[in-house]
């Protein structure tokens, strides 16, 4: 932990960027079918390919884009769409607060520009990286830009070919996103305590999803998991890492 800052400073640059790209590589196979699906659904709702590209580039949050499509109708209920988007994206507050202290040497400009593309997958891989050392801007950019390009290309392609593709659930591709997230969840496994956190958030999310409409289940699940972790916190832990070192890093 102590040498983190040195490491992240030395490794900054093209190598870190390339590492980010290669770390993201397997996720291309999860993001592409979801992007194609988004584009195809958007075309059905009457959006033009350019509108699909604009939404993908400016919003760049898959979950809320799908939610917006769900609400898309004529006349366009823009206020409802905007509010629902905000609600489902509230999880980003926790995500950015969690990632912010784990960044390497980022300038304020890098932070405020970089977090524009803080999509779930970008955040998750940055958190995974942060388990070993601080996340550098180059690494983050490598991950983020690869997802950005993949997402735009796939969703525009989806909006152009749309109807030809048919139902993606036929190929099990609707499950690709779930499978990806399960793999990412397992990456955070640190023993029994993690199990309790996951059980609490899973249960809260399923129950909230069943009884409360909208995207509240994500917030409810996140809060339940956080509470479970707080309850389990041990004041006198048997950790390898000394508090003084943790403070330094």
């Amino acid at each position, binding site marked *: 932990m102590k040498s983190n800052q040195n490491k992240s400073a030395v490794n900054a640059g093209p190598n870190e960027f390339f590492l980010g790209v290669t770390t993201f590589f397997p996720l291309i196979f999860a993001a592409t079918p979801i992007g194609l699906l988004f584009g195809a659904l958007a075309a059905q709702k009457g959006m033009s390919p350019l509108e699909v590209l604009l939404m993908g580039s400016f919003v760049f*949050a898959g979950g809320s884009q799908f939610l917006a499509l769900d609400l898309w109708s004529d006349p366009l209920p823009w206020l409802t769409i905007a509010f629902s988007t*905000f609600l489902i994206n509230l999880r980003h507050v926790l995500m950015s607060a969690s990632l912010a202290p784990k960044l390497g040497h980022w300038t304020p400009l890098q932070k405020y520009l970089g977090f524009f593309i803080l999509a779930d997958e970008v955040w998750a891989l940055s958190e995974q990286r942060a388990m070993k050392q601080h996340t550098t801007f180059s690494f983050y950019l490598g991950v983020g830009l690869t997802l950005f390009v993949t997402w735009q290309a796939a969703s525009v392609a989806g909006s152009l070919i749309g109807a030809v593709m048919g139902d993606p659930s036929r190929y099990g591709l609707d499950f690709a996103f779930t499978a990806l997230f399960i*793999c990412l969840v397992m990456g955070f496994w640190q023993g029994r305590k993690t199990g309790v956190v996951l059980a609490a958030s899973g249960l809260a*999310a399923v129950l909230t999803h069943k009884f409360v409409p909208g995207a509240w289940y994500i917030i409810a*699940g996140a809060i339940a998991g956080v509470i479970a972790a707080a309850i389990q916190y041990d004041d006198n832990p048997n950790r390898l890492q000394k508090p003084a070192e943790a403070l330094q890093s």
Partner: protein
Amino acid sequence: MMSEVFAVDPLVLFTILVMAAGTYLTRIAGLVLTKFVTFSGRTEAALQAVPPAILMSVVAPTAFATGIAETAATAITAIAALRLPMLAAMTLGVVSVVVLRLALTVI
């Protein structure tokens, strides 16, 4: 055809921009928040649970409350994720959901 591809409705553009503004606000909120508040002890432990808790919440309804095929495929993916590279575990998960859905409709 060309004009259809590049057509942008003003209200659509406005909706997209409002969505984008809200999303960007949530993304930088954590940056602003951690500037004024430092986390330690129990709060830090709680914050460390955020990544797995959010990921779990996002998938839980699909993974556990859709059907037997999805739940079984979730278990297979999770076990595979501990042993195989991510892409292999994901592929196994997608393949098993297809096989299980097919098997369940045949029965």
